Structures are given as structure tokens and as C-alpha cells.
């Protein structure tokens, strides 16, 4: 082994040990445990090999299927809306005007707030007796007030609103960085040729911004797939499992009910779902990302 290989190895080893012990081994172990019956609250039963039984149970578990569609719905609604809002914000904040600097900082506030805090905040806004949501809709006719978090049709929407508010900043950041990388002379040339604002957006901004938009969408998708804090604080997966997303269901099975074996099957499914998406992501943009790091 050459000198620089050995040296690089020594420098990387401490970080690799952490990654190995607390992420790579656990992933493999989750697979392994998904073939066992293992119940935390009944330790005397031990760890019994059951083959594909947990997987068969999953396929016939209506709550799990519902949880999968709830999660996919959550991702499908929130991520495009976040990218769209983030794009709008980035277009405005890419113009130069007085107060742009402070406004760019203010936009980051939702990103900086702990998710648990923003969840409590939205839970209060959606409160059935004195929440702002009800006041805006019905004024002081308290008889009409809704309880969005206790309504299976409204609760998922409430959670989506809270998610979009919290994470649009992140999409905005990525898209703004993309906008700033577009050279200004393209717009100047287009102006000389008499292009309208829409034509400039359609033929310059949008095509050049596509990688940034894709990046924002995929980062948000992967993050939305693992939504947990919001659901834990606002609804506990309820009412009637209307917001029981996969990560929350897996948590409940593994830790509230102690069914580590069955919970591991859910872990494996969530893992493959996001692996699939990260592969798409790495294939489409990952190598480009690495090149920009290496080019510097």
C-alpha cells in the first residue's frame, strides 16, 4: 500500500468507524431482524427465526398499506408545492431592491425553528376553540369552529401546511443559488433582442435552473419521506390513522409496541423506498455535484 493511501486511510478511519457502527451495521441488522420474531416487552420468548412471515404479515396489514399511501400522498403534495413556492420566493429575492438582505435572512427563520416547535405552533393555530385558523374562517361564530386535527379529512392537510411552511426555505435556498449562477449577460443579450420578461424566464431562466429545481425536489422528497416530528406532536398518527406515515408507524410498532421484528420490515421498506429515490438523485445530479467539489 502506498504512502498516501495509508495516510488517507488513517485520516478517514475515525469518521468511518462512526458511520460503520451507527449506520451501516444497523442497516444490515435491520434486514437480519426482519426475519425474526422479537418482542421487546416479552424478552423471554427470545429471538425466533420466522422466515418471510413478517413480510407476509406486512402485505396483509391494512394499516401498513394505508400508511404507505398516506406517506406517498404527503410527499407528492408537499414537495412540488415547496419547489414552486421556493421558486417564486427566489425569483423575487434575486431582484435587487432595498431591504433584500434582511428579507433573505427572515426567509430562513422557518428553517431554523426546531420542527417540534413549529409543530406545536401549528397545533395551536389549528386549535378547535381559539385557533387563528378558525377565527380567520368563521370570525367569532364559535359554533361553526372546526377541529382540523381531529378530522380525518382535514388532519393530513393541516400537516402538509405545517410541513410546507417549515421547509420551503430550504427549497428556496437551493433554487436561489441556482439563479445566482446564471450569467447576467444572457439576460442583457435577450433584452437587446427585445425579449419579454416571460420569454426570458421560459428560454433562459427555466432551462438553466432545471438542475437546481431537480436537486431541491429530490432533497425535499427524501426528507418528506421520513416525516416524523410533525406527526408525533400534532396528531400521533390519528385521527383513525389518517396521518399515520411510515416512519411514525414503524416507530410505533418497534418502540411503543416493542415488535422489533415486524418494525424492522417497515424499516426495510422505508429504506428501499428512499434508496430508490437517492439512486435516481445520485444518477441525475450526484456526479455533477462531486465534480464541482473536485474542480475547486
Amino acid at each position, binding site marked *: 500500500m502506498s504512502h498516501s493511501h495509508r495516510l488517507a486511510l488513517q485520516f478517514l478511519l475515525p469518521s468511518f468507524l*462512526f458511520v460503520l457502527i*451507527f449506520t451501516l451495521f444497523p442497516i444490515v441488522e435491520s434486514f437480519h431482524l426482519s426475519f425474526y420474531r422479537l418482542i421487546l416487552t416479552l424478552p423471554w420468548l427470545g429471538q425466533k427465526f420466522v422466515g418471510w412471515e413478517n413480510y407476509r404479515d406486512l402485505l396483509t396489514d391494512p394499516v401498513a398499506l394505508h400508511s404507505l399511501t398516506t406517506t406517498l400522498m404527503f410527499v407528492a403534495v408537499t414537495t412540488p408545492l415547496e419547489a414552486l413556492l421556493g421558486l417564486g420566493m427566489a425569483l423575487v429575492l434575486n431582484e435587487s431592491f432595498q431591504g433584500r438582505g434582511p428579507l433573505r*435572512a*427572515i426567509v*430562513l*427563520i422557518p428553517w431554523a425553528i426546531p420542527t417540534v416547535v413549529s409543530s406545536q405552533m401549528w397545533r395551536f393555530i389549528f386549535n378547535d376553540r381559539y385557533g387563528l385558523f378558525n377565527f380567520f374562517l368563521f370570525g367569532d361564530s364559535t359554533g361553526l369552529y372546526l377541529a382540523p386535527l381531529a378530522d380525518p379529512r382535514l388532519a393530513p392537510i393541516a400537516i402538509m401546511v405545517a410541513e410546507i411552511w417549515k421547509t420551503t426555505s430550504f427549497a428556496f435556498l437551493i433554487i436561489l443559488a441556482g439563479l445566482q449562477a446564471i450569467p447576467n449577460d444572457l439576460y442583457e443579450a435577450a433584452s437587446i433582442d427585445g425579449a419579454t420578461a416571460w420569454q426570458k424566464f421560459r428560454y433562459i431562466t427555466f432551462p438553466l435552473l432545471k438542475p437546481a429545481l431537480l436537486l431541491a425536489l429530490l432533497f425535499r422528497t427524501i426528507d418528506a419521506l421520513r416525516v*416524523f416530528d410533525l406527526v408525533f406532536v400534532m396528531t400521533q398518527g390519528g385521527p383513525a390513522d389518517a396521518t399515520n406515515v*411510515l416512519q411514525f408507524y414503524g416507530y410505533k410498532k418497534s418502540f411503543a409496541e416493542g415488535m422489533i421484528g415486524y418494525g424492522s420490515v417497515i424499516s426495510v421498506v422505508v429504506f428501499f423506498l428512499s434508496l430508490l429515490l*437517492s439512486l435516481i438523485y445520485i444518477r441525475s445530479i450526484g456526479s455533477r455535484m462531486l465534480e464541482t*467539489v473536485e474542480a475547486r
Partner: protein
Amino acid sequence: MRRKVFLLFWSSAIGCFSLLPFLWFVLTSLKTPNEITAIPPKIIPSFYLGFYRSALENYGLLRYVGNSLIVAGATTLFTIAIGALAAYALARFRLSWTRFYLMLLLAVSMFPQIAIAGPVWRILNYLNWLNTYHGVIAAYITLSLPMGIWIMTTFFKELPYEVEEAALVDGCTRLQVLWKVVLPLAAPGLFTAAILIFIHAWNEFFFALLILTNPTLQTLPVGIALFPGEYTMPWGEIAAASTMATLPLVFLTLLFQRRIVRGLSAGAVKG
């Protein structure tokens, strides 16, 4: 003129969207119990501090703040130390597998927490590290390393190699070069990474919930999420605790906005 009105309208709309919901919660924390439940809502509070006192005295808010400071602070220090070593190697030795390692880190940072939660819990249980600071900190270091290493690698690449070469010629070892030459030069980058790691660790909830079941060790997010109250929620206290948990972060963000933006988009889009 039209452009000016357009920009004024949309920038105010963006400002309100980002600021008002949280401002409402902050105002709530300064209201009296009657003002909180008033219909129509009272906008300007009477700056009643009772809920802050109650959150501090009856709910032990300071203990949660202390736990969060210890956990987030230690996570930041260790991640920077371990991450800087790795980032230096990744920035300076261009070997076939260092590229693979960066990709591995990227993939690892995308794992959903639930995919590793059970085994991580069992490892910590086996080590008797559940309900300890070092248990959470070890998990958090692992979660922060990918982001920290990516950011620091980007910053290290920007440093001129000539200074390091001179130091190597003078007989410094690589570790001495890293310590005496690279780290001082890369201080802004380290600081950026540190802010992001700190905010991340301060806000983390999922693993804190699993690992810390003992209330005396729980961090702020766990305390705020599990605020006791079945039928009548203590909204005043929750709002007060939330404000105290968030204001330091809001100040950090407003102060270091540029750095945060650079760090978050480091290497992400620039092409």
C-alpha cells in the same frame, strides 16, 4: 414604477409568510391566560411574564436548555474534529476510493432514521449507553458527519496548496500541516460547518426521543413535544418554552445568514 409596486407587494407577502406564524406564537407566550383564549384574538399582549416563570419553575425548562447545550455543543466539537480529519484527506488525496467515500456519506445522510433506529437502540442498550449524554452524542456525531465532511471538504479545496507544500518541505507531518496551516486558514469554513451542525443537533428529535427516556436528561425538543397536559394544554407555557428554545437559533440565523446559505448550498449547485 410597476416593478417597484410588484416587488414591494411580493416581498411583503414573503416576509409575512415567513415571520407571522412564529411571531404569533411569541406574542402568545406574553399574554395572560384570558388573552390566550380570547375570541376575537387579542393581537398585542400585555407582556405578562407569568408563563415564562411557570415554564422555568414548574416544568424545569432550564434543565432542558442545559441538556440541549451539552448535547449540541459536544456533538459540534467532536464532529468538527473527526470531520476535519476526513475532509482534509478527501480534499488533498485524490484516490479512486475517496470519491466513493464521499458518495457513501451522501447516501448515508439520506437514510430514513427508522431504517436504523431499532439496531441503534439495541447497540446503545448493549453498551448501557441509553439515557446517557454520550449515547445521544455518539448517535448525533454519526448523523452530523456527512454534512460536516461535505461542507469542510468544499472549503478545504479552496485553500491554496502552496503554503501546505512549503510546510511539508520544511519537515512538518500531514497532521501538523492540518493543525498549524489548514485549520487556521479554513476557520471561516469550520465556523460555518459548526453553526449548521449545532442547529441540526439542537433541533433533532427522533433519536433524542428513543435514547433519552429519563426526564432529567431530555433535550428541549423532547421536553416541548412531551409537554404534560391531557385535556387542557398549557399553551402559555408551551409558547414560552418554544420561544426560549428558538430565539437563540433565530439570532444565529440572522447574524450568520450568509455563511448558512453558503454552507447549505456548498457544492450543491454551482455549475
